[in-house]
């Protein structure tokens, strides 16, 4: 078995190593995000034909759907990092979990706003209490709760551990909320709108969507790396490696 993998992971968990690793990887992530983003936008806005039912309004899905996927993907990442932070008390995992939360909240916010901008011309309303929309709104509040709890503590690390605990409670909560909102929706039959009927998406529309999905994934990695690097500098303020970085960046 490759025994260097655990060793490498262990090393990567140390702040100075991760700082350098993230710093080297970040420009590539950003470049890939821009590349896939430009390809996806060109494909989605220019090349893809208008939908025969929705006209050009469907073009919002090229940002709406990737953002919605990201809002859930980032919560999952945050939950895993929070679990690692609580069980093995790894500082890097705490930082990753806490710095994921604002990015996740940003994507959730984009999902809600673009969703309502899409909904207005399509089903004539900015907002409906549909199961998916309501779950997404609850997700936004979960993110905000995690961010708020993290910043309520004087001690960063203690705040990170408390907020990590809240994130894990949230992970258990999300399926329960989704189930209960679904049940609630069947109870109030009048207000349900069939938004996501069975539809086969054409390849001309699918590939820009996939490209945008990749772009948001890479963007998340780039943004997370930058945030984690900044946070590590602030957390490890007294250490030698941080001092060297501060001095070398003063000269440039």
């Amino acid at each position, binding site marked *: 078995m490759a025994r260097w993998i655990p060793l490498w992971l262990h090393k990567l968990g140390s702040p100075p190593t991760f700082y350098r690793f993230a710093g080297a990887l970040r420009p590539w992530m950003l470049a890939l995000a821009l590349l896939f983003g430009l390809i996806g936008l060109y494909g989605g806005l220019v090349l893809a034909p208008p939908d025969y039912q929705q006209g050009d309004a469907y073009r919002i899905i090229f940002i709406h759907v990737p953002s919605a996927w990201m809002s859930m993907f980032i919560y999952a990442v945050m939950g895993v990092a929070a679990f690692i932070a*609580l069980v093995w008390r790894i500082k890097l995992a705490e930082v990753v979990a806490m710095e994921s939360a604002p990015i996740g909240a940003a994507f959730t916010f984009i999902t809600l706003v673009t969703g309502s901008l899409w909904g207005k011309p399509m089903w004539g309303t900015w907002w409906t209490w549909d199961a998916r929309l309501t779950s997404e709104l*609850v*997700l936004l*509040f*979960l993110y*905000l*709760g995690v961010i*708020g*709890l993290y910043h*309520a*503590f*004087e*001690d960063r690390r*203690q705040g990170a*551990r*408390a907020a990590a*605990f*809240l994130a894990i*409670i*949230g992970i258990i*909560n999300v399926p*329960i*909320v989704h*189930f*209960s*909102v679904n*049940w*609630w929706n069947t*109870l109030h039959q009048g207000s349900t709108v069939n938004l996501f009927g069975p539809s086969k998406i054409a390849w001309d529309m699918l590939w820009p969507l996939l490209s945008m999905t990749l772009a948001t994934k890479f963007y998340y990695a780039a943004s997370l790396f930058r945030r984690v690097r900044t946070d590590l500098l602030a957390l490890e303020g007294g250490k030698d490696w941080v001092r060297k970085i501060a001095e070398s960046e003063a000269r440039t």
Partner: protein
Amino acid sequence: MNPPGLVTACAAMLRRDLTLAWRRRGDIAMPVLYALIVTMLFPFALGPEDTLLQRIAGGVVLVTVLLAMLLALDAMFSSDIEDGSLEQLVLAPQPLALMLGMKILAHWITTALPLIVIAPLLAGMLHLPGAVLPVLLLALLLATPVLSLLGAVLVALTAGTRRSGMLLALMLLPLCVPAVIFAAGAVAAAQQGLPWQAPLAWLAAALVLAVVLAPLACAAALRIALDA
């Protein structure tokens, strides 16, 4: 010296908290007064038509009780943190989760129970049909402990912070959505003459789960929050 048995410790804990609450009777009255005021404002805001008030009565009572409980939630551990007795409890030989469970029970008795007692009055102010009242009370009886238990976990998490009032509301909102949905669903179903047992069964299931897990989570959260 042997530590006292679990039952003795639990009883002592419960008696202590109830005595302390009884000595500050004014605080018990505050959430009740708040619920009365909020309920009174609804007819003024929406107009006194019977049909409209009847339609919203169940939901209004539930939300009012939830808000009143939120008002009192902040104080669940605050005095114990101030005088250091909570840290003693963490160090005590008895399992922390059980002791916290007793504290949550005492808190539920002193804040939620008075609210349930005046719930018929609140429902009457909004002309809720008498036949629906038992369902409403049953829903409250199942939903309020769930809220107390979930709230206790969050209060424990914020134990190390100064300002927590609004933050607590922000954190509790996503967690209490299912409880509110099922409780209100049962009342709405009863009002329309539909079977209302299923949502209450879901609530009961949630309560059983919360009774088992919440004290454990509360203990873990408290250890994180007090670990300086």
